[in-house]
């Protein structure tokens, strides 16, 4: 298998897995952030948004320390699975979830904040419990925001570089995603291959975003 195809599949697997976990985490988190008046919510919101302002290397540095064999995260992971976390696919997924969380959480929180209270009341008056109300009525109601959040999370994970370099390294089939492959190729002055890799990334990104925006443009 060519390096390019291997990295392409790996990137897809990483971004896909990350997006699924992101949605599982961000949906309830964003709903809580949108609805709560608890004092801690501002701090939680700031925590979630940190990757937006921090250089990926800062995050990568702390994650590297945590995921190392003697780091707390690495120890927990080793205890549960018996495997190391740093420089593995699983480690990359965890890092990507943290790194891309604000890109999924923020559009969802914004959209959730616009849920009319009258509709939530109406659901309660219909006899729908708060959990079912969220899963069956609120989430589908914010379908567009959900699609936008998922695409942003996916695309942002495809595009990450610094954090992967810090904690993933460059292991073919395990951690060498497209952005790393491109970096390698450029460093090796293999501009012909670099052109293809960059072109693939560019095309994938453009096609995905175009498809998403045209979906969102259609009347609901």
């Amino acid at each position, binding site marked *: 298998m060519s390096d390019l195809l291997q990295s392409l599949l790996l990137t897809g697997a990483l971004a896909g897995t990350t997006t699924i976990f992101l949605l599982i985490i961000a949906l309830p988190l964003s709903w809580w952030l949108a609805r709560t008046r608890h004092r801690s919510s501002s701090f939680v919101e700031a925590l979630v948004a940190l990757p937006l302002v921090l250089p990926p290397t800062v995050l990568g540095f702390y994650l590297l320390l945590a995921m190392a064999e003697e780091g707390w995260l690495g120890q927990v992971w080793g205890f549960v699975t018996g495997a190391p976390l740093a420089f593995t696919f699983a480690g990359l997924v965890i890092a990507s979830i943290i790194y891309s969380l604000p890109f999924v959480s923020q559009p969802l929180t914004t959209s959730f904040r616009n849920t009319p209270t*009258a509709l939530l*009341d109406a*659901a309660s*008056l*219909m006899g*729908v*419990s708060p959990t*079912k109300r969220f899963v069956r009525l609120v989430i589908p*109601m914010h379908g567009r925001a959900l699609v936008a959040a998922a695409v942003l999370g996916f695309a942002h994970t495809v595009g990450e570089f610094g954090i992967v370099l810090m904690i993933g390294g460059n292991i073919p089939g395990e951690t060498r995603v497209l952005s790393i492959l491109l970096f390698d190729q450029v460093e090796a002055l293999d501009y012909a291959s670099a052109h293809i890799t960059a072109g693939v990334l560019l095309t994938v990104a453009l096609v995905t975003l175009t498809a998403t925006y045209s979906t969102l443009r259609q009347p609901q």
Partner: protein
Amino acid sequence: MTLDIRGSLTRPGGFRLSLDASLPDQGVTAVIGTSGSGKSTILRVVAGLERSENLSVQFRGRDWQNAETWIPPHQRPIAMVQQQPSLFPHLTVLGNLRAVPNATGFDDALQRFNLLSLLDRKPNELSGGQQQRVALARAYIKPADLWLLDEPLSALDALARNELAPMLAGLCRESGRPVLYVTHSLQEVLQIADHLVMLEEGRIIGSGTPEQVAGELDHPLSPLIDVGAILDCKFHRFDANHNLSELRIGDHPMWVRGDLSSPSGIIRIQIPARDVTLAKQIPEETSILNCLPAEIIDLKRTPDGSVFVELDCVGQRLRSRITELSAERMGLVQGLQVYALIKSVALDVRSI
């Protein structure tokens, strides 16, 4: 067995609801008041949308809320229709109705509210009246022991209101469940209310049957809503040529616009006091159709220079509001026989 609401609720704006009420748990109880009187808040309290430790709600002996108990709204056996339909915008009419857990009487609701042709539409493709019909159906199919209606017609245009009012009235009478109907319009509930509760500034200032409340002239709300009088008439015939119904009070005819024939044959009409003029003789060549003989029972002066004249009209109470000057000029006194002239158009009638 009643619906008991006790305690108080204070809002940041300084509004305070203070209640100690036992409402009947059968028939239609209309809660009437001006905007800001707290009438909608009462319904929200009963529904569980307002929470306060100082409020207790008990329905048929079961605590819904008090200092220790809290039954969340989705577990209360209520169905509620609000001023705004609040349909889910991403669901079709059918989807909105399907979202009701344990729905009963689904097909009946589609028929009753005339929704069969709208099932595949989204709420934004419906008129206000159609949306409110869906909201009514949604409440109708929810299993409930108590109905809460919060100004269900007031956001609608006149056309839609005329369409929905009979549906609502039919629903209230046939459901067999107690109904709490909040409105600022006495006219809206006159034909269906068994019990009236008047609210002002968060407090109940009067309650009773429609006839009782209409009889209380000193009522703080009477100038606001001009209760006037409520009369029960017999339907006599419909004159299709003139589009007028002939009702009877005793042997005296009352003409009212439209075909009012109804199964019961009894039509309840409301006559605002301002629409009753008095004359000492039957005026000749007047445009007013309805002229009833009456005896003056009482005269009450108000600070603003009006006089409320209480009349006995063939055994029923009627009330006229005239100026003090007119009363003086005509020499109106208790026991005087007069004629009450009633503008047909002023008769508020709903045939159901």
